[in-house]
């Protein structure tokens, strides 16, 4: 099992002029982990697939901006 996001913590200097961002996140999408796609992976229904942007659940990686976080996405 893999996670779709990783976090790291940039160094904050006492001389930084702006309020420091202490935690940064980056995307690590499924294509990094799945290797050559195996056959017979579980699929979405066609209607779900269109909305998801992919036919296969394993590749579904919806991106929301911080203000949208609460708003959902398809069940996996």
């Amino acid at each position, binding site marked *: 099992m893999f996670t779709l996001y990783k976090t790291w913590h940039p160094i904050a200097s006492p001389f930084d002029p702006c309020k420091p961002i202490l935690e940064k996140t980056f*995307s690590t*999408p*499924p*294509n990094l*982990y*799945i*290797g*050559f*796609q*195996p056959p017979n992976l579980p699929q979405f229904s066609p209607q779900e697939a*269109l*909305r*998801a*942007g*992919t036919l296969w659940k394993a*590749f*579904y*990686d*919806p*991106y*929301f*901006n*911080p*203000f*949208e976080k609460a*708003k959902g996405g398809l069940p996996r």
Partner: protein
Amino acid sequence: MWIYEKKLQYPVRVSTCNPTLAKYLVEQYGGADGELSAALRYLNQRYSIPDKVIGLLTDIGTEEFAHLEMIATMIYKLTKDATPEMMKAAGLGDHYAIHDNALYYANSSGVPWTASYIQAKGDPIADLYEDIAAEEKARATYQWIINLSDDPDLNDGLRFLREREIIHSQRFREAVEILKDEQGKKIFF
């Protein structure tokens, strides 16, 4: 030969009248990591790539034109009813001075599209790694545009396009595996 179908790949909706978003979206229209670059890059590389991979480059290249059309639709919807005042307020005054509300292949800073954005090295591994990189860059750009937008309908379309980049990247990675000729040793996790 290309046949055009009078249909968008995905239904595009924009619910907020906010032409400023058009300025950012244009990065995916005529920018270095945008859909035009992707389409032209793959459709051009396919002439010199091994046979096993020509179909994939043709198909993904064609799909990118469909994505280009979706971005154009988003920009069109955001700017077609914009007055010169609204264009200026959205940071699109320079664009308006040249183009009125017409679309144009430039990036979000107004720099016109150039073939320097794409490459064809003739080396299949170099070409495919460029393609994987292009897909990851496009994916990231969609993330930044989603971050800049508070229009949920627009973001739904952008999320679709970002997911397509993930799939395209996956297929190009598989193409590399095919050319490495490790078929019998396909590793499934």
